[in-house]
């Protein structure tokens, strides 16, 4: 069972690295979003320090969604998706591996870039670690939830906007607990571990449920 999945991961990783560098695109989009916020809210260091984790999280959410719309559409267009249905490997596992490869190619660069962008937002060391830890745990959930939207819009031309409309409401719990854990890391009344544990639970639940939902959508739309 593992050799086909490793082959799929390698293929997805290579495609992601070679086609226009979607990882780099996501990071540039992330950078742009974070860079324009101080122009909108003003350069007050205290204000930026306070809302910094939230800005980083919203930017990471939008950058993740931006890169997700082609997750299954490219496979549907070149005929690979039909062939996935004919393989011994269950479609659910294929979805999971595609999400893992997508996260490694686009989510990880965001997390690596986040501390540097956090410095632009006057974040202190503990806050930076908090943001990195919450993004590391929370962005896989964003990718997995986004995969449902990508699967549901696989037959829709230019479905990116529709996908965002479908997915953004579902990501609200991730955003709430991600931001509150990141803020708790730099002090406050709430201990860091409480919202962080819920964030971990959301990601684990997404890991268990989203591949089934996305594969069901792909099966239904493939008919």
């Amino acid at each position, binding site marked *: 069972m593992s050799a086909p999945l490793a082959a799929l991961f390698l*293929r997805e990783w290579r495609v992601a690295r070679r086609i226009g560098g979607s990882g780099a695109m996501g990071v540039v989009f992330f950078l742009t979003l974070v860079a324009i916020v101080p122009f909108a809210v003003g350069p007050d260091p205290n204000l930026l320090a306070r809302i910094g984790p939230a800005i980083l999280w919203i930017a990471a959410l939008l950058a993740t969604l931006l890169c997700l719309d082609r997750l299954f559409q490219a496979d549907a267009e070149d005929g690979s998706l*039909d062939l996935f249905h004919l*393989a011994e490997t269950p479609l659910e596992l294929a979805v999971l591996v595609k999400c893992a490869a997508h996260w490694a190619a686009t989510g990880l660069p965001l997390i690596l870039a986040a501390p540097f962008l956090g410095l632009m937002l006057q974040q202190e060391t503990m806050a930076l670690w908090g943001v990195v830890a919450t993004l590391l745990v929370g962005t896989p959930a964003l990718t997995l939830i986004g995969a449902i939207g990508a699967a549901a819009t696989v037959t829709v031309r230019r479905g990116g906007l529709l996908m965002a409309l479908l997915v953004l409401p579902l990501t609200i719990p991730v955003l709430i607990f991600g931001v509150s854990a990141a803020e708790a890391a730099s002090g406050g009344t709430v201990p860091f571990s409480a919202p962080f544990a819920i964030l971990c639970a959301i990601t684990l639940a997404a890991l268990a449920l989203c591949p089934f939902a996305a594969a069901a959508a792909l099966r239904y739309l493939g*008919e």
Partner: protein
Amino acid sequence: MSRDIAQPAPPPADGAMRLCVENLSVSRGGRLILDRLSFSVSSGQALVVSGPNGAGKSTLLRALAGLLPHMAGSIALAGGPSDVELPQQAHYLAHSDGLKSALTVEENLDFWSRYLGQEPDPRNRSVDAALAVVGLCRIAGAPVGALSAGQKRRVALARLLVAFRPLWLLDEPLTALDRASREKFAAAMRDHCAEGGLIVAATHEPLGLDEASTLALGSAA
């Protein structure tokens, strides 16, 4: 809808496989495309599905591949391993080639050989051997995006060879192929039948198989 089969299939010998389709009805978009279609194909045989555009050739192949639900009737592949479902014993070649244009020919085929051919089988060919059959050895390292339509089609045909599956479902396999490639592919199909394989091909053009039977689908409504 006519259902004449030129040669009735003989009963399968021991170890041989037999694809039996009985009273298959499939509708798409609320319209009945296939109405109570019955035929059978045995190991070593090829069935050419012909008919005008819209007669349901592609629909039939997608239904056989398990990609479309059927309203009535049955599709069964007798004689194979009982624990493997029919789609997993079939290769499906559609209009699209299933190739990633950013990857090289070799990387694409290597992926499909590992993804579709999970069981070790002496009839699985190496990527190099499959490329030799379709005559593309020299461009194994080229990205698929840089190939012509005919060359991409030949890479897609090589996919059928890297992982052995008894049933080949081919939808217009000869699209964009030149004369030499058609002859090479006809030889590959004869080899597949000789190895006990079954072929169901929808095509308007002669496949170059002398012993193939024909299934003529009726005219489009």
